Every structure is written in C-alpha cells, then in structure tokens.
C-alpha cells in the first residue's frame, strides 16, 4: 500500500515537474503560445461590479483607480454595492459616487447576503456587454479595462482575468511570502493554463465575463448548496469552471494588472487561504461529479488542471500525515530546507529582475513560504474538508472603522 502511494506521489511529482518545465519553455521561448489575439479597438460597454464588505477606505481607492482607467467614459460604469458592512465602507462608497458623478452607482443591500448574491444583484442593475468583477481592496493600472476587453474580440472567449500584484510586498515576512505565492500563481501556473485557454480559476479580484454568459451561470450560482447549506465562497472559480463547461475559453491576461493589499496579519491571511482552499476543494469534487461533461467540451489540459493537478494538495496532505510517522523531522531535513532556499533564491532572482515592484528585500523568507505551504496543506486542507457546511466573507469579516475625511 505504502509502495503504491509512493508511486502515485512520484507520478504526481513527475507530472508537476513536466508541467513546470513546459511552462518555463513557454515563458522563455514561446510566450505567444500563452497569449490570445487582442483587438484594442474593440470597445463594448462595460459594467464594473464592486461588491464590498468591511473594506473601509480601500474601497474608495479601488473605485478611484478603476474610474481613472483609460476607457471611453460613456462605455463603462462602476456599480459599487455594500453588503451591509459593519464599518464605514458605505460612507466611502457614497463619497466615491459623489466625487465621480455619473460614473459610480452606489448600492447597499438590505441585509448581508454574501458576495455571490451581491454580485448578482449588481449585475441586474447593469446593462453592459461585458461585466468586470473586481475586489474592493484592489487598485488598477490605467489600461486594465482595455487590456481585459481587448481579449473579447474572439467570440469564443468567455472569461478574461488579470494579474494581481502585492501592494505591500515588504510590509512583513507574511506579505513577502504571499508575494512569492502571487508570482508563482500568475507567472508559472496560469501560464500553463493560458496555453490552452483553459484557466480553471480566474480570480474574483479582476474577472471580466460576457454578460450573457454570466446570466447563463447566474441561476447555478444562486442555487449552489452543499446538502442544503448555501455556498457563498469561491464564486469566481465556480463561474470560470462553468464557462469552461459551456465551451468558452478562459484566459488570464497578465498585462491587465491590479494590486491588492496582502494580509499582514496571520488570522486574516489564514481566513483568506481557508476560503480559497475550500473553494478549490469544492471545485475538485464538482469536477469529479461532472467529469463526463468535461470530455469533449473542455480542453484535455483543462481537464488535467481541474482533475489531476488539485490532487497534489490532497496527496501532499496525506504525505504530511504519513511522513512524521516515519520521520518526525522530515521537514527539517537539511535537504528539504536546502531545496526550499534554493528555489527561493531562483524565484527571488526572477522577481527582482523582471518584476521590480514586487521585489522582496529578504529572499530568505521563501523558507517561510515552504513552512507555510506545509501548514497550509496539512491543516487548512483538513479544516476545509471538515467545514463544508460553513461559509462567510472570510478575511473581511472584521474591520476597523475609519470615517471618510479621517
């Protein structure tokens, strides 16, 4: 049994390495393979949906930077919806609506209904061809909207995402760790999925979708449940997955850029990761449930990324359960630390060279990244598997109160 498990883990490792190798090949020698044809003259109407819960003044900055994007003013609107925040977010939204008249629609739910329903409510207000969902704590580059929309010139393109960077990469070791994580996610993992236009999760921080496609998926979002318990997190992954199942392409345009504040405190970070991990595991189960629907519709690479790749987490979790039984100090072995630090050094070099705004002052924090990955894989995965009946806004549940003008 143990031998079989080791073979499975070795196979997974080989597949992952092959995947990374191919990704590096694409990035270095054939970058066009992972790019779609863009038409910057394509200018459909755009609604930017900004659901907000306990974001405070960050929501104002988000609205400001998105409004300042270079796109015809008469062709895009911002619909900011407050989900009954317990802080001053609503005041900041109102301030934005006042500061940018005619460009921002300020809405407030009657009660806290969660991000998914808030988004759907906001989409009902919108009449545009393209809906862009953004996070209320992000700031955006001036060409973000154009970069996203230009990819929709291909009618098969259903969802386009952007690349998120970290605004506070050097605030503390935690944000440094996350910076590496974001880099790996967008510049390594997404590249592989971009290759076949089958990105399995376009993040909700910056997600552009055709309106009719969103409306097609909307009923499914509303009826998402787990044995009767409503599922409110991971709508971005869910939407992306269903777009793939409906035969559309999904893509992350790394030139469409935004930046977010990475959590600086462990509880906040933990909740965020918990939310992401849970949506990933839910998606994995859904994938297996609807596996036959994928065949013939989704690109084989997309099927692989949805079905096999996520098993890494589960197999790693299982491995972490098993490893200490044989060697409690397995993860403190010099070889493990050396590999972690060597990988960190390479990443640091790449990030420093090609992404100076994401430069990390202390490259040794990658060692922490490895440590977090162990905790993340072990405890978070188990926690997620055992708390499918629980959902909330995650990292935004509590927020300090800071009134506009303060």
């Amino acid at each position, binding site marked *: 049994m143990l031998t079989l498990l080791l073979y499975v883990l070795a196979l997974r490792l080989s597949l992952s390495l092959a995947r990374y190798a191919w990704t590096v090949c694409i990035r270095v020698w054939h970058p066009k393979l992972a790019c779609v044809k863009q038409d910057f003259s394509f200018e459909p109407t755009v609604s930017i949906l900004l659901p907000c819960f306990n974001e405070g003044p960050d929501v104002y900055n988000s609205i400001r930077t998105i409004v300042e994007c270079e796109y015809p003013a008469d062709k895009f609107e911002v619909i900011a919806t407050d989900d009954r925040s317990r802080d001053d977010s609503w005041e900041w939204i109102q301030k934005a609506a006042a500061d940018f008249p005619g460009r921002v629609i300020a809405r407030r739910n009657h009660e806290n209904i969660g991000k998914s329903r808030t988004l759907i409510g906001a989409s009902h207000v919108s009449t545009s061809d393209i809906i862009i969902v953004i996070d209320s704590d992000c700031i955006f580059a001036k060409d973000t909207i154009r970069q996203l929309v230009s990819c929709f010139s291909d009618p098969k393109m259903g969802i386009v995402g952007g690349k998120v960077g970290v605004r506070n990469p050097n605030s503390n070791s935690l944000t440094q760790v996350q910076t590496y994580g974001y880099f790996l996610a967008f510049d390594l993992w997404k590249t592989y999925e971009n290759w076949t236009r089958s990105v399995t999760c376009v993040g909700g921080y910056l997600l552009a979708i055709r309106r009719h496609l969103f409306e097609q998926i909307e009923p499914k979002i509303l009826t998402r449940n787990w044995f009767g*318990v409503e599922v409110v997190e991971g709508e971005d992954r869910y939407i992306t997955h269903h777009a793939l199942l409906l035969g559309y392409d999904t893509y992350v345009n790394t030139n469409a850029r935004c930046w977010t504040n990475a959590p600086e405190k462990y509880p906040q970070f933990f909740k965020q990761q918990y939310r992401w991990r849970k949506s990933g595991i839910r998606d994995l189960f859904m994938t297996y449930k609807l596996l036959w629907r994928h065949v013939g519709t989704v690109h084989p690479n997309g099927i692989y990324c949805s079905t096999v790749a996520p098993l890494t987490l589960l197999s790693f979790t299982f491995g972490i359960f098993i490893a*200490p039984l044989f060697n*409690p100090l397995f993860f403190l072995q010099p070889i493990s630390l050396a590999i972690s630090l060597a990988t960190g050094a390479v990443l640091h070099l790449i990030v420093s060279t090609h992404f100076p705004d994401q430069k990390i002052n202390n490259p040794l924090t990658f060692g922490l990244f490895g440590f977090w990955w162990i905790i993340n894989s072990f*405890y978070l995965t*188990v*926690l997620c598997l055992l708390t499918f*009946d629980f959902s909330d806004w995650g990292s935004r549940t509590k927020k300090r109160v800071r009134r506009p003008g303060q």
Partner: protein
Amino acid sequence: MKLEDIRPAINDSVLTLYRIFAIVSLYAVLAGVLVFGLGCTFYAISKTWVAPVILSQDDKDTLDLTGKTLATQNTVDDLKLDIGKLENTVAEATLHKAKLQKLLPAVDEAIAQENRHKRETGPVLANLDKQKHADEARTQSALVKLADVDSNIEKELAAGLITKSDATQATMVFVKSHGDLTDSKIARTLLKDTIWEKTLPSTTYLDTLHKKAELESEIACLGIVIDNAQKQITTERNQVTKLDQALKVAKQTPLWAAMQDGRTNVALVAYENQAVAIEGAPVYDCYLSFVACRQVGTLKAKFVGEQHATHPIFRSDLRGFLVQLELTVPDSAKSKTLFVGSKPLLF
C-alpha cells in the same frame, strides 16, 4: 413520494452526520497535532529518557556473539595446548642439544688422542719398516746363496755324499727360509698399511669428522627448532592475551549478559542523557509516553562501548551506550522509552 420531497430530510441527516464526524475529526487532528508537538518538544528537551531494549539468547546478535565467543574460546584453548606442546618440544630439544653439546668435546678429545697416538706410533713403525726392509734384503741375499746349496744337495745325494735324510732336512730348511721371507714380506706390507693409517688421514678418521659435523649440524638444527618454537610460543602467548582481552571485553557487553542470563533488559542512553546513567538510579515507566509514571526498577550496570540506534521518537541516528536494567515490571522493557533518575513531569 418524490425525491425532492425527502431531500431536505436527507440533507439534514447527512449534515448532522457530517458535523459530528467533522467535529470529532477536527478535535482528533488538533489533539494529534498538539500531542505530536508536545511530544517532540518534550523529547527534544528531556535529559532523562532512555530507550529500552530486550536482549535474549535467541537474538540474532546474541547468537552471533555466542558463536564468536565459543570460536574464540576454542582458539584460545588450542593455542594454549599448542603452547604446551611447543614448550615440551623446547625442553626436549634443549636437553638433547645439551647432551649433544657435551658429546662434542669428547669426540674432539678422542680425535686428538688418536692423532697424538698416531703421531707417536707412526714414526716408530716407519723405522721398523726400514729395518724390516733391510732384514728382507739380507734374507734375500742369504737365500740366493742357499740356492746354490740347494742345487748341490741333489748332486751330493746322487753322489752319496750326503744321506737322503740330510738332503731332505737341507731342502726343508731352504723351503722354510723362503717361506719366512714371504711371511716377512707380508708382514711388511701389513706394516706399511699400518704406517699409512698412522701417518695419513684415514677413512675412519674422515668418518669420525663426518659424524662430528653431523653432530654439530644436529645441535644447530636443535637450536633453530628451539628458537622457532620459542618465537611461536611468544606469538601464540600474545594471541592468547589479546583473545583473552577480547573475551574479557565481550563478557562486559550486554549480549554476554543475555547469553548467561537468558533475557536481559538493557536501555540505550544517548550521550546527551548520560548524566542520569548512575548505577542504582530508579527507572520509571509512563502510561502515556511521559505522563503518569511509576517506578519499575533500577539501573543495574553500565556497559562499555558505543552503540548506534534510531531515536525512538525522531527516528534520527542516535549515539550512546547501554545500561543494564533491573526491572520489577518486565513488560516495561517493551515501552518505547523509560526514564531514569526521576519522573519526567513529577507525576
């Protein structure tokens, strides 16, 4: 009844079961992580734990040591026997050599005496030979003269000048004289032989010298034999000393104790914890690894020699030495760890 009608009930049941399972599992995982962390921390800090090992006559190592010990003991016995034989050989050879060495001067003395005798009698006989030679010459000339007389006897007998009896008597004298001359020649020839023996090296003399050389060779050979035997005795005595030392060391190992006593409870003491390895110190066993402990015996003896083992908790390489335990609760030897000196957490 439609599935949709009973779906809420099914969902509720599944959720209830799931929640029970989830709560139990989460607490189990939490408890597991906590216990694991505490355990690792405790064993990283604790300086009183030892790792018990049960040794018995049936153990592979014990059997191996038994075989080796017996083989070594046999070798020692064989060597001692051989040393005894060699010592006897040396004694016998020494005695024989001494006797031969005593014989050698006697031979030399005999040869010297004989040589002296020859030197004395040789010249005398040579003179006698000369005299004999002169006597023979005179006898020869006398016989030549008698030859005429002999030829005249027949004539005088025929002439009747002498009687037949006188003629016969005269002839007999003549013949006898010839015979005497011949005897004299024979005697002289023999004398020459004697003179030759007395004045020149004879084969007898050479035989004597040969025997003397053999004697000396035999003495030398005996010397070599004695020397070699003594060297071999020295070598074998060294071997015996070394093997005895090895046996002595082996007898101080826990495996020897296991060989002798049948089953021996020992424990590996890591070098970091060696301070607790004091003979007579109490030994504790705990029900929950290091909690709820009771005394189960004492530390009986320390063994020499480094031992390598795997850390019972961390599975890393461990270096230390073994101690013998006197356990009142034999099953405690099956515990993963025991504690020496005091209870690890005072309870």
